[in-house]
Structures are given as C-alpha cells and as structure tokens.
C-alpha cells in the first residue's frame, strides 16, 4: 500500500486499523503522524461548543453569495412538486407536518444516548472508574496501540500502558473541568493539550524510532 492508497482508504476506515493500513503505518512516519492527527481532530471536533456555531448573519451572507453565483436558483412558479399544497387546506399541511416531525425528533432524541448529556455527566467520581471508561476516552483505540506495542517491543509495553493511563486521566479531568464550568477557557485548552499528548503517545508508538 502506498501513501496515496492509504490516504484514500482513510475515507472508508478512518481508524486505519486493517492489516494493510497497519503494515504501511509501521514503515511510514509521515502517514502515521497524519493518522494520529486525524484521530485527535475527529475526537476533539465533538467537543466544540454550540457557541462556535456561526451567527445567522453569516449563513445569510453565504446564501446571498451562492445566489449571486447562480448555485441557488429560485423555484419557478407552477413547477412545484406538490401543486395541491399551494392553496386551501394544503397550506396548513406543511407546518403541521413540520411540527409533527420536530415532535417526533424530540421524542426520539430523549430515548437516544446524548453526547452532550454524557459530557455533562463526567464528574470527578466518574473520572475514577475503571478500564472501560479509560478505553472509551477520546475514541482512540487504546487496545490496538497496546497490542501493537506488545508485538513490536514487549519491553516497552508497561511504559506505554502506564503513560496511556495517565493521559486518559488527563482527558477525563479536563472534561470534568469543562462540565463544572463550560465557560472556563483554561479547561478547554487543557482538553486540547490532553488530546495533543495522547496523539503524541500514538505517534511515538508508531514512529520509526520504535525498535
């Protein structure tokens, strides 16, 4: 597998954990660093706050620009796919249908695990739970990393396991700080730095310097 093939294959398997991808990453520091960075970005993106959503003015400006470019065209009169809905009782059907859809969405969301709710439930006590929580932190595949280290350099396995435990605790502590005060900029920066440390751990493990 070449570097180009690996990067194309990431679209299907962004964790780069199939045999061909792993074999290439073992010998290619450039691609291994790229994969480590992509994993960090993918995990950190979920932490972006809603406050980072652009304002309505931004969306309006984008729409105006797209209309000027001709990428958005106004719908022509008389070519509606739903002509029967353009008059009479049909006018009320669309907003009613929209309301029903929103209600259904709320009901479904209440029954699905919420990522935001899960984040708010991270507390100091939950930060000390066992292996399962640590393994799930940040979504990076810790088991694969330890397995790789065990195969390549068994003598280093204990060191990497210990450092992995510390950095996962770092991430959990940063998340608990954010949960306690979502406006704490220091806490947000700590979370990014924690992910950066974890990314570096993976990078060092996959680096060509590992004997």
């Amino acid at each position, binding site marked *: 597998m070449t570097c180009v093939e690996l990067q194309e294959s990431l679209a299907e398997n962004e964790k780069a954990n199939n045999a061909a991808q792993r074999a290439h990453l073992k010998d290619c520091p450039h691609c291994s660093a790229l994969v480590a960075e992509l994993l960090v970005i993918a995990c950190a993106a979920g932490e972006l706050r809603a406050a980072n959503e652009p304002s309505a003015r931004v969306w309006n400006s984008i729409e105006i620009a797209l209309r000027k470019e001709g990428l958005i065209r106004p719908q022509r009169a008389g070519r509606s796919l739903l002509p029967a809905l353009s008059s009479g009782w049909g006018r009320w059907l669309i907003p009613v249908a929209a309301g029903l859809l929103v209600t259904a969405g709320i009901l479904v969301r209440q029954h699905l695990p919420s990522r935001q709710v899960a984040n708010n439930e991270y507390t100091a006590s939950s930060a000390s739970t066992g292996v399962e929580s640590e393994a799930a932190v940040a979504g990076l595949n810790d088991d694969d990393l330890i397995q790789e280290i065990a195969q390549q350099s068994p003598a280093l396995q204990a060191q990497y396991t210990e*450092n992995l435990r510390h950095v996962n605790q770092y991430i959990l502590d940063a998340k608990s700080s954010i949960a306690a005060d979502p406006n704490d900029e220091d806490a947000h920066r700590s979370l990014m730095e924690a992910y950066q440390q974890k990314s*570096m751990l993976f990078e060092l*493990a996959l680096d060509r*310097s590992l004997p």
Partner: protein
Amino acid sequence: MTGRIIEFAVIGASLATTLMAGSLAAETHKEYRFNVGPRAGVSVNNPYGSISVKPSTGNVVVVNAVLSSDKVEVDNNVTGNRVEVVSHLLPGADARSGSIEYEILIPADASVTLHSSTGALHVEKLRGDVTLEGAGATVDVRDITNAHVHIKTLNGPVTVTNVQDGHVEVDSLSGKVTLNQVTGPLVQVISTSGGINYTGDFGDRGEYRLTSHSGDIEAIVPDTTSADVSARSVRGEVHDDIHLQPRQHVPYVLEKGSAFWGTMGRAAVSSTVVLRSFSGKIHLSKRSAK
C-alpha cells in the same frame, strides 16, 4: 598454593583479554562526509544508541559512527541539500547488538532532526531548527540561538539550557523537563505527569506556558524579572514567594492557595507567563543571591 593462585590469575587475565579483544573487534568505526549548501537539513534515525550533534567548520556534514556489531549497518541518503542517516537493524539485532553511537558535525545554520528510542540525544551550539523525538531518550539541548526547538519524549528527561530568541516547544508525557536560561518569543512545555523546572528571567515580551497535568511546576526567577504571571492548579497547591502586583480583572476566581495572578517588575516591558496544573503543585520563587 601460591603457584595455583598465579595459575588461576594468568588464566583469568587471558580470558579477560580475549573477551575484550572480541568485543573491540566486533565494534566498527565508520566515517561519512557530505558537502552541503547553506541551511542544509540533517536527519538521523537511530533506534538504539546515542546521537551527539555539534557545529562543524565549513559546509560539511561529518558523521562518525561506532557500530556495536555486524547486526546493524548505516544507511545514508543525500537528496539535494538534505542528508538522511538511518541505522538499519539486521535480523537478530537487539538493543545491544543493534546499537550505534553517532557523533555528528553539521554546519551551524543547518537544521537537524533526531529520532532515537533509547539513546541520549545531545545538540549544542547551532543556529538552525532542532527537532528531537524519542520515547525513552535523554535529551540535552544547549546554546541554541535564533532557532526553533521542538522536543517530544515519552518518559525521557529533557534539559534545555541557554536557548534564546527562538520558539521552544517541549512535549513530554512523563519525563522531567528542566529549562535553564531559556527565553524567546514562545516557550511552551506540556507534560502529563512529568515535573517542570524553569530557572531564568522569562526574557522580555515573550509568551511562556508551562503545563503539567499531575507533575509539579517550579519557577525560580531573579529580582530583575519583568513578567505578568498567572498560576492555577485545580487540586494542587499554588505558592508564590515573590511580591506580585495583583491583577484587577481576571477571568476566574483567585482562590488563595490554588491560584494567583500578578505582575512583577516593569509591566510595560514584560513577558506573559502561564503556569497550569490539574493536581500538581506550582511554586514561584526568587533565586537566592550568590
């Protein structure tokens, strides 16, 4: 009896001499020389063994390598103005038989990248960018001027001494990081469980950020320091032995013993210093006069 002792001594000496000769014979010395242009790039990847880099005279890269056995060889490649040296482990090599000790001379303006898992990494007296990576490598960087220094280690200790006027970024998961007289527009250390020690005056107009999740942070500064210093630890203790002019408006509560924020020296010409830990201790103290 005396004769027997002498006999044993002779046999022992002969055996020791034979073993020593055997080990010396297994070692191989190699030297490589490469002519390069200004601002060359030099990269060395050595899984086992140390790498020492010092400045050369003229535009030449000189690589002296001591190979511990025939289970390892030196591969080198020159592409344009870039020299790449790789220790190639042959089948059956281990940490002992696959070790190479490098002493490398490069032009002072060249940039250098070193990778090693276990060996010591030493760089001194350069003006080009320095990038060092190693899991357990001991890192020692000194006397670097007007260049960027990037260091990444897993648990190897890092010492940076007399590095000025460049960006210094150190990432170490659990290695102890020691900075002596390190100043520049940006100095940043991030550690998960390693301690951070800074001794110096934080220069002027730079940004300094020392962060450790659970390691302790110690900063020792002289009376002449001008800096705006903020320190905060979520669960650890925070102490300052220096009279700081308190800052009036801060974005978080300055709980005594957990945080402080103030200015020392001349506020108009000062660096910004940020000390952060989650559970480690933070201590800002004055350097005692000799």
